[in-house]
């Protein structure tokens, strides 16, 4: 168990920070694209987009139906290693509300096993505003933990710190002539936008128009996902997508 924990949160170089700060809280971004809040023993994920493949299939694009399995398996590995008391999915957990009832038996069983013995919160997103009871856990519009508001879309009325999803941030840097583009956690210390966790979810560059009103740009950091660590990169070093 300890080893698994270390794999997920490897020792980073002494110069690298391993925690980001939202309000007064320190949280740990994980390479898998989830956020672990140790003080609250809470695991946060955003934009799972389960059953996205099936939603496309309904429109005549018969994408491989394994995205739900892939996403839940990755989430399962995290849950197994961290055994958090609480799991919060920050909205768009299902690609369509109706899809939530259509999980194949094995995927349903997998989801149930992940929920067992812990508090599970589904925050509603624009894709899944009406989740059926069958999905288990607690369905809610927002959730506040330690003064931090968790919701799907960033709110322009937010007065305190918030953690959101919805925008699927990615960041791009160029160094020694080589471009690296990764999913990322984007934060200015008071707002944090989580990367999308789902297997079929694409990304939007944090320098895109849509992110513009969200951050105090001097304070922006993109925590970019690597294979051995999550790397905090100063906002001014980022490049737009082209």
């Amino acid at each position, binding site marked *: 168990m300890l080893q698994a924990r270390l794999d997920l949160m490897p020792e980073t*170089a002494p*110069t*690298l*920070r391993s925690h980001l700060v939202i309000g007064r809280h320190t949280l740990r971004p994980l390479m898998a694209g989830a956020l672990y809040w140790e003080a609250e023993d809470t695991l946060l994920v955003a934009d799972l987009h389960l059953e996205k*493949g*099936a939603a496309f*299939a*309904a429109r*005549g*694009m*018969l*994408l*491989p*139906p*394994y*995205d739900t*399995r*892939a996403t839940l398996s990755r989430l399962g590995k995290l849950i197994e290693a961290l055994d958090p008391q609480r799991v919060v999915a920050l909205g768009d957990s299902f690609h369509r509300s109706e899809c939530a009832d259509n999980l*194949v038996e094995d995927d349903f069983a997998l989801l149930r096993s992940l929920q067992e013995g812990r508090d599970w919160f589904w925050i509603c997103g624009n894709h899944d505003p009406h989740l059926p009871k069958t999905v288990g856990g607690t369905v809610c519009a927002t959730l506040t933990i330690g003064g931090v508001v968790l919701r799907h879309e960033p709110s322009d009325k937010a007065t305190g710190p918030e953690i959101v999803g919805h925008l699927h941030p990615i960041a791009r*840097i*160029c*160094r*020694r*002539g*080589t*471009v*690296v583009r*990764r999913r990322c956690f984007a934060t200015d210390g008071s707002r944090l936008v989580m990367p999308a966790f789902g*297997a*079929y*979810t*694409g*990304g939007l560059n*944090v*320098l895109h*128009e849509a992110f*513009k009103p969200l*951050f105090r*740009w*001097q304070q*922006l*950091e993109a925590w*970019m996902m*690597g*294979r*051995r*660590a999550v*790397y*905090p*990169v*100063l*906002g*001014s*070093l*980022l*490049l*737009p*997508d*082209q």
Partner: protein
Amino acid sequence: MSARTRKPAAGNDQSAQTAHLPKTFADWFASRGWHPRAHQLELLERARNGRDTLLIAPTGGGKTLAGFLPSLVDLAGRPLVHGPARGVHTLYVSPLKALATDIARNLAAPIAEMGLPIQLETRTGDTPQSRRARQRVLPPNILLTTPEQIALMLSHNSAGPLFGNLKYVILDELHALSASKRGDLLALDLVRLRTLAPDLTAIGLSATVARPYELSAYLVPQRHDRAPAMRFAEIVTAAGGVKADIAILKSEVDVPWAGHSARYALPEIYEAIKAHKLSLMFVNTRSQAEMLFHELWRVNDDNLPIALHHGSLDVGQRRKVEAAMVAGKLRAVVCTSTLDLGIDWGDVDLVINVGAPKGASRLAQRIGRANHRLDEPSKALLVPANRFEVMECQAALEAAEEGQQDTPPSRPGALDVLAQHILGTACAEPFEPDRLYEEVTSAAPYRDLPRESFDRVLAFVATGGYALANYDRYAKLKQTKDGTYRIAHPRFAQQYRLNVGTIVEAPMLRVRLARLKGGTLRPTGMVAGGRVLGEVEEHFIEQLSPGDTFVFAGEVLRFEGLREMDAIVTRAHATDAKVPAYAGGKFPLSTYLAERVRHMLAERKQWTKLPGQVSDWLRLQAAFSVVPTAGEMLIETFPRGQRHYLVCYPFEGRLAHQTLGMLLTRRLERAHAAPLGFVANEYALAVWGLNDMSAMIRGGRLDLRELFDEDMLGDDLDAWLAESNLMKRSFRVCAIISGLIERRHPGQEKSGRQMTASSDLIYDVLREHEPGHVLLRAAFADAATGLIDLGRLGQFLKRIGGRIRHSEVSRVSPLAVPVMLEIGRESVPGDAGETLLRETAEELVAEAMGDDASVSTTQSPGGEHAAS
């Protein structure tokens, strides 16, 4: 039909055959002072007897008229029918829209002059919807079209009456279509047409190829189960024309060691243009075309009308250039393979091939663009852009003198194309799987398709064909009680029609000139609404930072930023571009020419054939490093800038080198050389990394023999394929062709980037959860012969079998210069990416530790974004 057939090709031996020619036709030939050529009459006789025939003729051999004679003669002999036509009589298929239009124009003359009651129409992507709909109901006698249009017509239930009386199918430029996905599509269309019209006769027209029999098999229905041997069509070969007059340009100045611009030869090229009426200048890439055009205008003191033609330019611009050529208003045109195929744009009297010829057959095809008369030699000038290309030009010239051909061999039909065809077939009418399988395997490319593969493709089309079968309710095809498959909903037919075809372009961005506010000198801002100059690959724009300059549409442009699907640029007041090129040529150096070049390099005796400066260059290489023998491969290692380089010289073409680069970097990563990226050209591969590879080899920490071991194609390949960008690009193409994901259409909001991302994600998931899926098989087969060229790489590893010669040098060697200056770099996923991320992250820390001012003076991304 132009002056192509104006002289008798042979003596009196043809008078006997002329008997087949009706009087109207004989008179028409006579009235023009022409005699029909032997091959025209031979083809006529065979086709009239219903025998599928392949005509092989050099350019200028009256090939097109030969192909149409059987149709014209047959139609001329029919009683005039009033009222609706009884379906199409002759279908002419060309790889190019423009060629179909051109042929229609040329054919109209003899039809009018002989007063034949024949309706002739074209149908291409440009034909208005209303006319296309009318053509399905009231078809012309002769329809000139493209493979995609045939597929579209076959997907309607009107296909039966439309093609039921089809007599002839003429496949023009067959050599350019076969052994490609478009060729597969056409082959499937042809067998479908045969089912609808069992009596049709297929006529193939082709330039000289390496294996005519292989090509002819395309024209006849194969009978795999009943006759195991391949069936071939009859072949008529036209007498060859006069041998081309080819020369390699001799320059006063040195041939550069590197580069593709051929800038050194500009004065000589310009003189050659001045000395001829109309010169066609072929280059291999659009960037070369841009560069050459730009440079020519710099020296164009006489203001000669010189134009530019390539696939990225705005269509209107291209049409203008074509019209000007025909009208004789131009003296020279710089072009890419867009003008390779048989359209006659004016009276070209000189072909200048700038850069590498790439293959003997490709060069012959290009040279054939000059002078469409059989009795006069085509004139060509080869201009090598660097010293490797001097050797390649010499090899190509020798091959041309010996009449050698190196057209690519045929390969099994692609499964993604089959998927598209199956859906199209169902759109027209329900089908029985057994009968469709029989039909499909009668097409030469699918002759050996196992039933199991067919069934898997069918399942893929119907429900996705996944092991986890939970899409039955979303099925596109449903099996009815009688066993036939029918389309589940009419909207799938619509989807199919939007998606038809096998040409999948890389995502493109429009290049749009910005209009500046506040004047050009002190602009205060920019408005995006300027003129569109053309399109470039998204890949290329991705490499640019705002402020970078590049050459496009004959101008030096400054990249300003991106706005939606537009790359916004301004005119740079500079003569040289910072980013010199974009995208490599599509065609790799042929194995045949590569081998000739390797031998030329190895055998010092042959150096005397080369210009002095080139043999000097090789001698310099021999003195500074090593010149490898024909059987061995040279590897050089040296430091440069902040990086350490390893350069090897396999001579296997860019695609195979790219794959080798991918696999090598994996191995180098394991050996802790921290490779950052690599670049390949036709002859060599350069890999660079953070660690000193010379020292590693010296210290025994890097074993070159092991590095190039054949087992590279085992686990390493497999592991690489999991994350390979090239594999993902192949998969994307297969996913689009097979109809898994939809094609992007103009005006659709979805950006190419998002589409690429999503097909990449699909690839990841599918590979992890169902690695044996038929679409992955298709993508792999595709990549193995195309983007990753595994076949060639395997032969190479076997060929060198450890015969490696290492040379540690202190700096770039003469031989390494060309590849070092190559553009089109691939970065390595993995360790290097980690290193760069770490460095960038540490920069943050360093900045954060320093004084606050350094952070606050950094321009905020928000501000920068607002400005772009």
